[in-house]
């Protein structure tokens, strides 16, 4: 394993690479980054083949799910998407190369001298997206991925080195077991920007050790939910709605921060919340054929069994519904009152009836700043008013279920600008 001293050496070298990187036109950098990203999409490219061969083992997702996840993630790694991202966030790549007129002033955007990034391991691909965000703004980056997301950044670094060895000097992917303070400190010492994706505990632990002059960009725990309004429960729409919700739940085996954990279903539609829950279960069962759930270890399976059996007891006494795939790790639960705990793995979704979607904001209030995406269906003209209320109570994204799983490259990730968070503006006044 890499030692803390080696980490410090790498961090130092990355920082030194900035001088050369700064001289390159941003469009040229984006071109090279996109060319490396494209290799994950080209069906016969050895990089893609190696990714697909290794992902099931390293991520625990099923092979079919790995294909879907890679296609969805890598779509944002192309030159075109990266250009769109830069345009959306910074108004164009020119501002990364020198002073340009923006909003009546001369200004320039500088990437970090060294962005050290700590990424969680639940969803493969998040690490590559993170490293691209830094390189796109011409910031060298040291990426420390989570264990389940080591493969793709490593392959990306190799792909980039083959296409543009000079640019690859500004990228390092190093793994060490999470929480190793010596390694972390070795990296932090050279960083002028740190990003962290992870649990509130991880974020808090790191926050304490980042120097006040170092910018810290935090992506803490998030929860996403969904809401189904009456219109989507009509007999014409019910199966479609259930299929869309199931797909949003199933993607990444529900490990994403965008993955809905609970679905609020409006009462008074032509299908009741229980009927919807039953359809959702059928849709998850269908998906199990096309996009099977990945393997669970015995401990994860054990916690899942506890949740299922406990929900069975709760529904036996209090009404509601439990449907699950037995050996397949999908579960739909609808119970009144305090609910069974959420297991750590598998696809496990709760259905909660609400009298009217207008009540949703109050229901979600306890989630506060942890709320992220709200998938929606069947809200009709109400969507804008409800989205506004959801936003005010913490949500940063309201989106049809079909688009829940893969936000566009230029989304306001957790309500912020992913590139704007990384750059420093320099104004020139004459």
């Amino acid at each position, binding site marked *: 394993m890499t030692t803390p001293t080696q980490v410090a050496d790498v961090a130092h070298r990355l920082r030194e690479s900035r001088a050369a990187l700064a001289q390159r036109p941003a469009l040229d950098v984006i071109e090279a980054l996109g060319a490396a990203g494209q290799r994950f999409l080209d069906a016969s490219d050895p990089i893609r083949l190696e990714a697909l061969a290794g992902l099931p083992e390293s991520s625990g997702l099923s092979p079919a799910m790995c294909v879907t996840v890679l296609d969805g993630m890598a779509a944002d790694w192309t030159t075109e998407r990266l250009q769109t991202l830069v345009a959306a966030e910074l108004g164009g790549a020119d501002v990364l190369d020198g002073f340009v007129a923006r909003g009546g002033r001369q200004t320039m955007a500088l990437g970090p001298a060294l962005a050290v990034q700590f990424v969680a391991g639940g969803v493969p691909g998040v690490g590559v997206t993170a490293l691209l965000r830094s390189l796109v703004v011409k910031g060298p980056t040291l990426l420390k991925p989570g264990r389940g997301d080591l493969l793709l950044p490593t392959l990306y670094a190799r792909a980039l080195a083959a296409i543009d060895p000079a640019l690859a000097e500004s990228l390092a992917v190093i793994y060490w077991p999470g929480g190793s303070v010596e390694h972390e400190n070795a990296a932090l010492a050279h960083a002028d920007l740190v990003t962290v994706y992870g649990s509130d505990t991880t974020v808090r632990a790191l926050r304490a050790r980042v120097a006040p002059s170092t910018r810290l960009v935090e992506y803490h725990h998030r929860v996403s939910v969904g809401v189904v309004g009456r219109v989507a429960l009509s007999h014409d729409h019910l199966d479609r709605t259930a299929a869309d919700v199931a797909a949003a739940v199933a993607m990444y085996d529900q490990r994403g921060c965008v993955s809905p954990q609970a679905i609020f279903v409006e009462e008074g539609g032509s299908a009741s919340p229980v009927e919807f829950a039953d359809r959702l279960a059928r849709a998850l069962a269908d998906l199990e054929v096309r996009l099977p759930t990945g393997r669970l270890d*015995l401990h994860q399976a054990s916690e899942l069994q*506890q949740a299922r059996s406990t929900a*069975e007891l709760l529904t036996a006494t209090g009404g509601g519904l439990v449907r699950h795939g037995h050996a397949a790790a999908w579960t739909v639960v609808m119970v009144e009152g305090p609910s069974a705990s959420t297991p750590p793995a598998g696809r496990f979704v709760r259905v909660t009836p609400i009298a009217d979607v207008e009540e949703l904001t109050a229901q979600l209030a306890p989630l506060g700043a942890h709320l992220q995406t709200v998938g929606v269906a069947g809200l009709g003209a109400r969507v804008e008013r409800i989205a506004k209320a959801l936003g005010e109570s913490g949500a940063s994204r309201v989106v049809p279920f079909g688009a829940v799983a893969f936000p566009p490259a230029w989304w306001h990730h957790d309500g912020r600008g992913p590139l704007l968070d990384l750059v420093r503006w320099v104004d020139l006044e004459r």
Partner: protein
Amino acid sequence: MIRVRLSTFFALATELEGRFGAGVDSPWTDADFEALALAAFAIQFESIEAYRLFCLGRGRTPKTVRSWQDVPPVPATAFKHFDFAVGSGNLSPEMTFRTSGTTRGATVRGRHLVPRASLYRKSLLPPFERHVLGGRVRMPFLSLVPAPAERPDSSLSFMIGAAAEAYATETSWLIDAQGALDIVGWRRAAERSALDHLPVVVLATSLALLHLVESLEADPGPPLPDGSRMMETGGFKGSGREIERGELHARASAATGVPSHRVVGEYGMTELLSQLYEPVLTEGGDAAGEYVSPPWMRVRALDPMTLAGLPDGHEGVLAFFDLANAGSVCHVLTEDVGSVSDGRVRLSGRARGAEPRGCSLAMDELLSAARAAGTDPA
């Protein structure tokens, strides 16, 4: 109706207490166990509404169940939501034990109502005598488990209290309910025991033992005399501490002078009134890592997804059928993973580095944190 059921329960409990009292070597044929298990199930099915509805949902009733293996096991986490007690409402529990509440969703603690404490007392003594004392001997107890008066809701404290009453010549309670170790009291007790050459039994949770070991490593005390032994139980869940069990035993052995082959691991939980022990005192150190249950408790490893029984030696989730639980539910499905060979349990540790659910925190943790203002699970 209720009266009839209760009298049936009392008759069964009395019979069981007699059987438990006959000791761990008393003969228990499969047929004996089966008959008592099905009798207990019939009472629990009739008398505990939530359990009856659960069993009906699985199509299992006393009429259709032919063997204890077919009795639906209750998940241990359900003790956070339900009071499983025979005669609930008509028979007030003699004891209420609470789980430590250190698993995920920590704000909700489970509880185990015990309608008849003598069932627990009678069942805990013979295995303790065999595995912790190594025979019918009396000796001083040094307890790093809080006294029952300090922790009336702890089944472990109750157990040590009952064992001390039965077997201790004297008992030093060396830890309080908050977990503060009385190291001065330990040194005094250890010195006296060394001077008198009087072997002692040390009873400790893993966490308390680690605290003791760290104190003694910083400032050593006299070794405990030959013939001393130690019972260690429980893990480090929720404490933020974790060391290998082997390392803990080795360090405890070095710090106290109790040889590591005389450190007995106990495996138990609030939801089950019987305990399992490593039979190291009777079989030697090679038996470390194997846990033996009393004859009135049966254990199986099940497939965690389908609950199908697994062959000997295969890892699965552990399910126990414990007749000492006659007053609540006998068949309990734990969260623990292990294998069973010849009725003996081997526990499997959690694989390190298993990634939890992405960046999304479990909904219930957030929601339970939001409504943490003292809602009682019951």
